[in-house]
């Protein structure tokens, strides 16, 4: 196998699958892939949580709270995620405290570039999730809330046990789309040097221009597979949540 790719690289200079036989480059690909997976998974979880909390806050009695959520959505939805990343990292990053390292003289920010990427991307995707969940919540008939209220549920209990489970089923397809987008958007963390898959890929083809095509091919394949796994999981979940005798 390794020999095959070594020979291919010798025969066809543009098709140097270097990470198939060079351990150092392979390590880069794998660690990049792992970072992309971690980044995606964490942003996925946080963005969904942000969506749930935001949608809850949108139903708040206080107009101030609703305005804050609305402002948040407008900002994150209407500005480019790349600019958000740069802003979080460079502008806000300046103001975060630093820790002194073990050696006593190096300083490191409390929130690393990876941390900022997670925060920024989660808020970005979270803004869309708030809207998605809100649409789902609006599709839940008011009579469900009345029924739960008549049984003595608090607003929060009725949200958690009745409204959300029903809303979730309505908005899964839209949520799916947004989460797929999120996985792809993690590549933008490249801009603040988060060592994810794109970052390492670029560094590989900068060192070995002959590996450019194969590495791009690998990138496409990797994202297709990652998204496929996500979609597979979501579809299984959707099926598991199907209610017998109920429309959605």
């Amino acid at each position, binding site marked *: 196998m390794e020999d095959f790719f070594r020979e291919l690289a010798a025969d066809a200079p543009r098709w140097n699958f270097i990470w198939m036989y060079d351990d150092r480059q392979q390590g880069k690909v794998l660690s990049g892939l792992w970072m992309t997976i971690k980044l995606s998974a964490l942003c996925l979880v946080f963005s969904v949580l942000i969506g749930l909390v935001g949608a809850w806050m949108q139903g708040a009695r206080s107009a101030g709270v609703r305005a804050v959520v609305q402002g948040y959505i407008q900002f994150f939805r209407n500005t480019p995620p790349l600019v958000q990343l740069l802003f979080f990292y460079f502008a806000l990053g300046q103001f975060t405290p630093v820790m002194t390292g073990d050696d006593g003289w190096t300083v490191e920010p409390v929130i690393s570039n990876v941390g900022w990427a997670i925060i920024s991307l989660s808020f970005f995707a979270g803004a869309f999730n708030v809207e998605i969940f809100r649409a789902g919540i609006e599709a839940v008939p008011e*009579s*469900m809330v*009345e*029924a*739960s*209220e*008549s*049984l*003595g*549920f*608090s607003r929060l*209990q009725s949200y958690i*046990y*009745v409204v959300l*489970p*029903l809303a979730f*089923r309505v908005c899964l397809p839209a949520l799916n789309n947004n989460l797929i987008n999120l996985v792809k958007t993690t590549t933008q963390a490249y801009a603040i040097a988060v060592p994810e898959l794109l970052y390492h890929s670029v560094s590989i083809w900068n060192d070995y221009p002959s590996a450019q095509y194969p590495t791009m091919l690998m990138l496409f394949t990797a994202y297709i597979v990652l998204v496929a796994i996500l979609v597979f999981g979501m579809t299984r979940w959707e099926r598991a949540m199907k*209610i*017998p*005798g*109920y429309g959605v």
Partner: protein
Amino acid sequence: MTWTADQPIVSIQDVHKSFGDLEVLKGVSLQVMKGEVICIIGPSGSGKSTLIRCVNGLNDIQSGSITVLGQEVHDPKLDKLELRKKVGMVFQQYNLFPHKTALENVMMAPVLVLKQNKREVEGRARALMAKVRLHGKEGSYPGELSGGQQQRVAIARSLAMNPDVMLFDEVTAALDPETVKEVLVTIRELAEEGMTCILVTHEMGFAREVADHIYFTDRGVIVEHGPPATFFEEASDPRTREFLSQIL
């Protein structure tokens, strides 16, 4: 003020209620003693639903007073939960939680709201399912049940909270004549066991049979009321006469 059994369990005094400019209740008063069954009849849009929704605080009122077991329902300081433990409500459209099985529907409120032991609640819920003649349907989802069966689950769900008063808002109006009977049988049994019931219904035969007192509403006022025997035979108001002649 502590309530004693010689006082009305539900007391409605000169209640006014408007939706915007539309005055729906124009000074309604009625009293229900413990163990009594009262039926509210009247043309569509006369405010029957609005009235009973005011009793459990689903609608607010502009003026007047509603007390349940001596407690003012529209006291802003009132703990809504306390009220809802006392008053059960069954809706025309059943309003079961579609993502929960019949048994779970019955168990939810006692477990979540009253924080009762799950085991013990389950035993009680199964007994209630049997009481409404749905033994064997515990694991079915609402979507898998007929309208009449769903409505009986809804009754069991309200009963699980051990309410002092039950409100029924045209609970048979969405059912076909065959299934109406099974639901009415359940309600009659409740009435015979001494449950205080306030029913809005178009089933005159049923009202005549189970009600202790009948109220006829039209355009937001109680036009006429009396025990069924006298009410049906001797109603004097022309509006009542006309309504009865159309329906009987």
